[in-house]
Structure formats: structure tokens, C-alpha cells
């Protein structure tokens, strides 16, 4: 009985969420994104926060050209003054605010159509440039980039361990070796060459990841830049949702993920209410990915697979990279971790 109610209620909820007024929801989501990724510089952060909070309180403001013009100017100024540390999604956010500024300067009846088109172009172009850089870089195409990333980038640690079988200790050692190369001179150790471990574990996975990424990003770029029809609409939405759900579970870059989902939602027409709901759901899912679910899954997995608690206690410190280094430092086996500016 209850299963029948749920089976009826979920599609109804999806339809209701999918039928949202985009011209209200998208600016609101943009403001939420702005609030969570506000710049660190106080003289730009303060006016932006005041503006966004005012926008949330008086939502009519979010449909004003002037509002988005000021927001775009503030973000643009932040990027210009801090280009060396601004991530690419900040640029995309700035272009998006400029788009909203332009869209709301049009008559109400054609605003939604303008928003669909401009968001589709932004999505297609950003993916096209991403693919072009990858395709034009030799070390990406030969799998070297992902090999390096899987061996050294802590954000991909669980991916390398679960799917490549790399050991946590080896990955932690690789990172420490890299730190030694960069900052070892501060301890009078001049090292110019370090041998990393775990090549055999990640080599195949690196190739698969390289080609999967280039294929799916190319598909997104092409489908979003192709003329709009029923077939392209279904395929582009499906591919973008697949891209977001698979990529951001490991590459925890919330800002970019949210930005893509917002652009995805903004380009959905009224007929695509199912996809609208999916974009909102993945928007929330990306936030869920930010929670420490990977260590949790690993802990749950271990508790099922390890029979004797005494063994778990004995093995645990050796398998957790974060636990290993401090433990060695405390025991005086290795010196305090070297720090490297990111």
C-alpha cells in the first residue's frame, strides 16, 4: 500500500519541481551560488553579500537588469584583481551574471527563450575549450596527466584506491616525496628528482579516465552547440547529468558542478520538466558529495569485511594516510610535514 503511495507521489513531486518558473528559480539559485562562493577580498565581498541578501529579501530585484549588472561588475573586478587564483567556474559565474543582465533587459515574453539559448552557448563553449586544451596537450592524451593526478592529488585518492587498487600509504608517500622536492631545500635537502610508486596500480585506470573524460566532454560540447531539436535536447540533458553524477563524486569541485547544473536547468524548456527536476536533484547531490561519504563507505565496508576487531585496530593506522604521517612524526621517525603552497 505504502509502496503504491510512494510510486504515485514521487512522479508528482518531480512534475511539480519540474514545472517551476525558471525566471524565478534560476536567479535565486545564482544568488545562493554567489553567497557560497563570495570572494575573499573584503571590499568586494561586503557589497556582494549585501546585494545578494537584499536580493533574497526582495526577490523582485532579482529580475532587474541593474542588479545583475552590478553583480557581474563586482565578480569581474574580483577576477581581474585575482586572476592568478581565480578558478574557471568564477569566470563562468561572471558570464552568467552578465547573461542574466542581458536577459532581463528584454521584454518578459522572450526572456526565457534568451536564457535557454545563452546558457546553452555558455555550456557548449566552456566544454569545447576544455576539450580543446585536453586534446592539444600531449601529456593528457598519453594518459600521463591522470596518472600523475591519481598518484598525487589527494582529491582523487579514493578513486585511485577503490578502482586502481593503489595503497593509501603509497599515495601518502608520493605526496610527501613531492613536498620533499618542492620544499626540502628548507631543511638543507636538495632533491631534484623523485621516484613515485604505484604506477602499475593506476596506469590502466588513468587511460580509462583520460578517454572517458574526453569522450563525455566532447559529447556535452557538441550536443550543446548543435541546433536545438527533440533528439539533441534529450541527449544533451542526459549526457550532462551523467557527466555531473559521475565526475563530481570524486572530483569534489562543488562550484563548477553547481554552475553546470544551473546552466543545465536554465536551458531546459517547459516540456523538459523531468530534466529540470533531475538538474535540481543533481544540484543537491553535488552538495551531498561534499560530505565525507568516501571514508564513511570505507569504514562501513571494513566493518563488514574484517572479522576480528583486534585486527582492524592493528591495521587501521597503516591504511589511513592522514593517520600515518602524524603518527610517524610524533614518534620522531620522520620530521614534521613539509608545507607547500598550493
Amino acid at each position, binding site marked *: 500500500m505504502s509502496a503504491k503511495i510512494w510510486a504515485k507521489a514521487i512522479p508528482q513531486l518531480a512534475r511539480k519541481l519540474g514545472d517551476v518558473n525558471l525566471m524565478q528559480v534560476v536567479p535565486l539559485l545564482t544568488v545562493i551560488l554567489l553567497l557560497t562562493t563570495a570572494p575573499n577580498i573584503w571590499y568586494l565581498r561586503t557589497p556582494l553579500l549585501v546585494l545578494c541578501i537584499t536580493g533574497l529579501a526582495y526577490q523582485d530585484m532579482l529580475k532587474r537588469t541593474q542588479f545583475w549588472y552590478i553583480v557581474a561588475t563586482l565578480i569581474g573586478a574580483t577576477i581581474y584583481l585575482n586572476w592568478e587564483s581565480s578558478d574557471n567556474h568564477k569566470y563562468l559565474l561572471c558570464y552568467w551574471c*552578465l547573461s542574466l543582465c542581458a536577459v532581463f533587459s528584454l521584454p518578459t515574453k522572450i526572456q526565457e527563450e534568451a536564457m535557454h539559448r545563452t546558457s546553452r552557448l555558455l555550456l557548449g563553449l566552456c566544454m569545447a575549450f576544455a576539450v580543446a586544451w585536453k586534446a592539444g596537450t600531449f601529456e593528457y592524451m598519453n594518459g600521463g596527466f591522470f596518472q600523475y593526478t591519481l598518484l598525487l592529488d589527494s582529491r582523487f585518492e579514493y578513486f585511485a584506491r577503490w578502482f586502481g587498487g593503489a595503497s593509501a600509504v603509497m599515495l601518502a608517500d608520493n605526496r610527501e616525496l613531492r613536498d620533499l622536492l618542492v620544499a626540502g631545500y628548507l631543511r638543507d635537502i636538495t632533491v631534484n628528482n623523485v621516484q613515485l610508486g604505484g604506477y602499475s596500480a593506476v596506469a590502466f585506470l588513468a587511460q580509462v579516465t583520460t578517454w572517458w573524460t574526453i569522450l563525455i566532454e566532447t559529447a556535452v560540447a557538441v550536443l550543446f552547440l548543435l541546433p536545438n531539436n527533440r533528439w539533441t535536447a534529450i541527449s544533451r540533458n542526459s549526457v550532462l547529468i551523467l557527466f555531473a553524477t559521475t565526475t563530481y563524486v570524486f572530483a569534489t569541485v562543488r562550484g563548477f558542478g553547481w554552475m553546470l547544473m544551473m546552466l543545465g536547468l536554465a536551458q531546459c524548456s517547459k516540456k523538459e520538466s523531468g530534466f529540470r527536476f533531475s538538474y535540481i536533484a543533481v544540484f543537491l547531490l553535488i552538495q551531498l558529495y561534499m560530505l565525507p561519504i568516501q571514508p564513511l563507505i570505507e569504514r562501513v565496508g571494513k566493518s563488514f569485511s574484517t572479522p576480528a576487531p583486534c585486527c582492524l585496530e592493528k591495521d587501521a593506522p597503516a591504511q589511513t594516510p592522514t593517520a600515518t604521517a602524524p603518527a610517524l612524526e610524533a614518534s620522531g621517525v620522520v620530521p614534521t610535514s613539509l608545507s607547500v603552497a598550493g
Partner: protein
Amino acid sequence: MFCEFFGAVMNENENQFALGSPSFYRRVWLAPLCLILVAGVHFVRVMTLDQTQWKGGGFGMFSTTDSRSARFLRAYLITDTGEIPVDIPSRLQKQETEFRAAPRKSQLEFLATELANLRWYSPNMRWRKIVAQHANQPADAVVDRKVLYPSKLQSLAIDEPLAGERWKIEATRGRHADRVDSAALPITAIRLEYWKYQYDSGENQLVAEKQFDVVRNVSEEL
């Protein structure tokens, strides 16, 4: 002008903004054109200024190992008795990050000059001097601020770390410089080296190579 451009006066002539009109397309393409323009500038800078693909709005992230973290600086204080390795102080972090994103020799020269203008001192040596000067005082003696400025003449050895330890050398400037005057290191010059490592996927090695360096003499006034 702003209103005219964005059509805040659109009600005057709605046909001008009809679906498919030039005004409509101008608005649709405004942001995408900005994206193309910035990505074009980024491409030129990557090709000509060795800017990293990761930064600058060209969407070249996750395509190369040549990110900012693969480019790093090594700084050395040069004294009459040898060289002391030091970290770049946090006050110069923005300039350092900018340099690593798009390295130019002129920028490295600027950084070296900034480092040469700082007062480098050993915090441990300062406190050893304070303690040495205060050693003969009775416990109930009233201590004033003079105790914080021990004699410059009193000479103590630079606190060298044990093998594997980090050098404990700090930098300061402005009004704080007088405070550490007694423990200032006798530096003659600063050497700043720019290094870059590359990943050799065949050998699975990180290989670092010095790109260029700059030496700046420390002025007599300091």
C-alpha cells in the same frame, strides 16, 4: 548609455526586441562572446608568457601537470659564512602566486628586491640575547621595555638547525624591524631561484629543473 545598451527603455519599441531580432541575438551572444574573447587572450598568454593552462579563464584545467604547484621558488639568504634557505613570507604570497601562474624574470626581480628590503632575523637568537642580558638581574627587579631591545654588540652564533630540521628564520619590516635589530642576520644578498618540475610518465618520476634565478644585494642601510 547603460540603459540604452541593455534596453531598459525597451517599452518604447518592443518590435526592436522581438525574438530573432539583432537586439535579441546581441543579448544572447554577449556573455558567450566575452567567454570566447577571454579564452582567446588566455590562449595567447599560455603560448607567449608560459602562463599555466589552469588559470586565466581558458578552461584548460585538468589538462596538464604544469599547474601552479609544479612551479616553485627556492629562496636563499647569502651571508659571509654561507647560505640560509628561507620560505617566501606570507606578505608576498600574492606576488609569488602571480609569478607562479605566469612567470616573468622582471617579476622575480621584483620579488627578490622585496625580499632584500625585509629584515631577516632569528627569533631564537633574539630571545637568547634577551635572556643573556637579563641573566644577572635579581628576580624582583623591575623590568621595562629596554629588556626587549638587547645590545646589538653582544655576538651570538646563528641558531643552526639539527640535520633535517627547518631553519627558523623570519622576516619583518617597518616598525617591527627595530624590535628585532639585535638578532638581524648579516645578509649580503638574496638569491631567488625559479624551479619547475615535470612528470615523466614513462619513468614515473618527478624531475625538477631550475628555469632561471635572480640575485639581489642587500642595501647597506638595512
